[in-house]
């Protein structure tokens, strides 16, 4: 009941806020579309309120409760909740019955799925995990170790509101409300503009799509985002009839909220701006005034997210664009590698495989839209219709980012637009006997027990839910153990570590069920470095067995510059920089200073006397990268030695020196390559280094790199297996005589 109550309250507050917002603009809305538009519009208002409360560290359940009740009361007292406007033009009775026949069972199916304990991959990992963390902290926290926490979270903040009053499932139910709102928006739009059957058919396509079903009834955000995009599209179309600047402002706010919901949805802004500016210019409505109003309103919604990231992460668009906003949180090379991996999923050897994958197979792209989407090219037959052209244009624009991530759900932003564009010419056939039965076939194909006839069983899609678990008749634990792969080890970690423990993982554990500070190796620069350290003893290429030596006549030197002069794809790295004079190492002292123009934040690792840490440029080499050493007082030097790993073949170096008089000169451009000496127990050294960085525990799955080595050589590492489950082991790093001070 608490789950259902929390979700209903969140949706009710959103609708109330939306009704208030819509009341403030001079739009002539039909009764149905006012209700349909109020959820996305109000979601923008509620999300902004939650953002403000989080920024003020006032994210308490009672604060949300008071704010929510006040919003509903305000809407009630101003009459915003009353029925307003005429009913929409009617939908044929046959279609009404067909929709009821389809929507009721699918609605119950989704409701049951959303009510079940959350076990979706991203939902249980970060959508809910980060919100749970905010809730524990009563507001935003500076999270530098999880790149997903840096994405805009406009929809997630609605989940935070629901989560504070209910359980995880309340968040999924809030998302489900958008899945219910989307068909209402499609049908509302279609009824207003005179093609109700097409709206009904598109609504069936979208609502019964296995991908929309599973995504929309989980704590994801994609369906909410497309509902927001369609709202912008809808409002822009309404603006053409009522080009009032207050409507322009509403469009701007909603387009800006699209960015706040998901970065890629920022495309709503250029779309809305282009239409408003061009139409206002052609109709002499004051194009600048409308454009400025739209942009200002959009920025109002976007700026808080940019400022938060800029102040806390040095990058307003974190975790993207790190090349333009270099920072110690996300490495440039990591971002590029991650983006490349998103462009080409494992097993997808050609883009020609994608149509079949995203429409009906789904095993390689994490889901499928459903076979009905194979009919989308029919939209081309309707291009003479301006509505079809607008829909196709919007669909192509909002889907244009798809190839940056070829997962099927990244087509969700385009799907409803293309479905409606396709349905318009399809339903122009002057008989119900084709579209109506076709809609029933589409729905039949979308039902979970029927997808086996065409889809891969490995694809992410809606399955028949466990209604006993949804109603909590069956224990939540049992369902999660059954359906959430890493649930047992996650709970084991929770039960066997202290509350303030930092846990390094190489496969993300679901943060929604873990209150510890989890550091996933591939989610931040910190994680990247910890993985690099721990993997060094396991990977010969990482061990600094290489030695690059610059030799020159003995001379007094006050500063040195090691310059990299080649361009290439390699990353430059140095485990240790050592200076020599007549065969003896020049002792480092407190007057030494160092700097670099590439990844300066990690430079200390080239001067810490540890063979398991290394400074890496973390961006592809380019001429002019350099490391500088200021010796404070001039010292006699005749050799500079770089201890390096053997995974950088393109790097070319030269050495510059500054003498006691302050003059710079080229010291050597012909270093000699050699082999470095032997090291002690690298495993123990690496474990202690990780421990010194505040990580006392790590989890390794048997299938992961090093899994067997950690298990077989735990004494050598100085680690103790604490607990094992799900094919993974939680290790504790033991302190020892060589323990380093905490960093």
């Amino acid at each position, binding site marked *: 009941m608490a789950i259902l109550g929390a979700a209903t309250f969140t949706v009710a507050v959103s609708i109330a806020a939306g009704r208030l917002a819509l009341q403030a603009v001079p739009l002539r809305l039909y009764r149905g579309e006012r209700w349909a538009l109020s959820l996305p519009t109000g979601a923008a208002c509620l999300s902004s309120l939650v953002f403000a409360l989080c920024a003020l560290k006032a994210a308490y359940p009672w604060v949300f409760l008071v704010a929510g009740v006040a919003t509903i009361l305000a809407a009630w007292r101003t009459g915003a909740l009353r029925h307003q406007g005429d009913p929409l033009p009617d939908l044929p009775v046959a279609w009404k019955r067909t929709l009821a026949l389809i929507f009721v069972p699918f609605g119950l199916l989704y409701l049951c799925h959303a009510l079940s304990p959350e076990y979706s991959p991203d939902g249980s990992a970060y959508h809910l995990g980060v919100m749970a963390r905010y809730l524990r902290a009563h507001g935003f926290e500076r999270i530098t170790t999880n790149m997903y926490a840096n994405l805009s979270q406009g929809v997630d903040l609605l989940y935070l509101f629901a989560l504070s009053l209910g359980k995880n499932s309340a968040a999924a139910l809030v998302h489900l409300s958008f899945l219910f709102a989307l068909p209402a928006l499609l049908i509302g739009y279609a009824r207003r503009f005179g093609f109700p059957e097409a709206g009904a058919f598109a609504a069936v396509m979208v609502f019964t799509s296995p991908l929309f079903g599973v995504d929309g009834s989980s704590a994801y955000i994609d369906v909410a985002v497309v509902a927001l995009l369609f709202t912008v599209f809808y409002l822009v179309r309404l603006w053409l009839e009522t080009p009032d600047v207050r409507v322009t402002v509403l469009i701007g706010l909603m387009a800006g909220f699209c960015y706040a919901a998901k970065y890629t949805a920022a495309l709503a802004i250029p779309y809305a701006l282009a239409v408003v500016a061009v139409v206002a210019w052609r109709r002499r409505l004051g194009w600048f005034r409308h454009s400025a109003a739209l942009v200002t309103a959009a920025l109002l919604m976007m700026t808080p997210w940019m400022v938060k990231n800029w*102040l806390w992460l*040095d990058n307003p668009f974190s975790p993207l664009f790190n090349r333009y906003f270099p920072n110690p949180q996300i490495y440039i090379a990591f971002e590029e590698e991650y983006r490349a991996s998103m462009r080409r999923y494992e097993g997808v050897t050609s883009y020609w495989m994608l149509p079949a994958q995203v429409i009906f197979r789904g095993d390689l792209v994490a889901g499928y839209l459903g076979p009905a989407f194979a009919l989308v090219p029919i939209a081309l037959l309707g291009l003479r219709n301006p509505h079809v052209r607008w829909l196709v244009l919007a669909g192509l624009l909002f889907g244009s980012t798809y190839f940056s991530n070829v997962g099927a759900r990244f087509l969700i932003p385009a799907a409803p637009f293309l479905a409606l564009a396709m349905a318009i010419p399809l339903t122009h056939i002057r008989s119900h006997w084709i579209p109506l039965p076709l809609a029933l076939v589409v729905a039949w194909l979308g039902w979970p027990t029927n997808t086996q006839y065409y889809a891969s069983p490995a694809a992410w899609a809606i399955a028949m839910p466990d209604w006993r678990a949804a109603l909590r008749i069956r224990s939540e634990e049992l369902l999660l153990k059954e359906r959430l792969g890493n649930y047992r080890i996650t709970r084991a970690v929770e039960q066997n570590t202290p509350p303030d423990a930092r846990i390094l993982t190489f496969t993300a554990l679901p943060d929604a069920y873990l209150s510890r500070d989890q550091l996933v190796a591939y989610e931040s620069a910190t994680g990247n470095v910890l993985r690099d350290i721990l993997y060094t003893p396991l990977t*010969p290429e990482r061990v600094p067995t290489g030695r690059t030596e610059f030799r020159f006549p003995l001379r007094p030197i006050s500063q040195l510059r090691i310059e990299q002069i080649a361009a290439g794809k390699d990353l430059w790295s140095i485990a240790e920089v050592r200076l020599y004079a007549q065969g003896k190492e020049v002792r480092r002292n407190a007057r030494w200073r160092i700097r670099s123009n590439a990844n*300066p934040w990690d430079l200390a690792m080239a001067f810490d006397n540890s063979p398991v840490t290394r400074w890496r440029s973390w961006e592809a080499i380019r001429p002019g990268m350099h490391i500088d050493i200021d010796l404070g007082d001039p010292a006699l030097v005749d050799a500079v030695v770089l201890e390096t790993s053997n995974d950088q073949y393109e790097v070319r170096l030269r050495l510059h020196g500054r003498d006691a008089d302050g003059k710079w000169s080229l010291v050597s451009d012909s270093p000699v390559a050699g082999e470095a000496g*032997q090291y002690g*127990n690298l495993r123990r050294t690496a474990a202690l280094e990780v421990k010194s960085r505040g990580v006392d525990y790590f989890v390794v799955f048997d299938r992961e790199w090093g899994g067997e*080595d950690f298990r*077989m050589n735990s004494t*050598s590492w100085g680690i103790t297996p604490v607990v094992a489950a799900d094919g993974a082991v939680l290790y504790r790093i033991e302190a020892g005589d060589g323990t380093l001070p905490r960093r």
Partner: protein
Amino acid sequence: MRFLAVILLALTGCAPPDTWQPLPFQRSAPDDTPASSLRALVRMSDVDASRHFVRDIDSTLQSGAWRWTGKRPELKLFLESVENLKAVVEYAVAGDTFRATGPVNVTLYVNGKRLAGRRCEADGRYQFQEAVAQGLLRAKAENTIAIEVDKIWTSPVDGAKMGLILLSAGFTK
């Protein structure tokens, strides 16, 4: 207010590019006991492989992957536990030595006890993968693994004795 304070701290906390930094805390190698520096499985390419050698394994790593052995190469390894372990040795008979020696017999020993044997009728790569009885092993202690070849090749030029090519040896689950 705390939010604003954190923001200010964050603003001042990051080292902008090209700013001079002091040297970090200098690390020293951790105290090491002989046992804890050994592992259960050793690849010849491992940087610390040589600390596991007992006898008859050349100190020079060839092609970044293998080493020449003498007649009875032996390694010491540390085992945490002794349940369900297999002794694994990856080795090869070189074409050049095989032409001189012909087929060779190779025997696998664990802690000095014979575990298995094999006749190599041709040159090429071979592997022992034999289950080891718990009683033959010592938990939380050093154990040895060895292979013995019955015929070795002696260089007529410098008298160097070449047995097998060793790639890895140790214990695994």
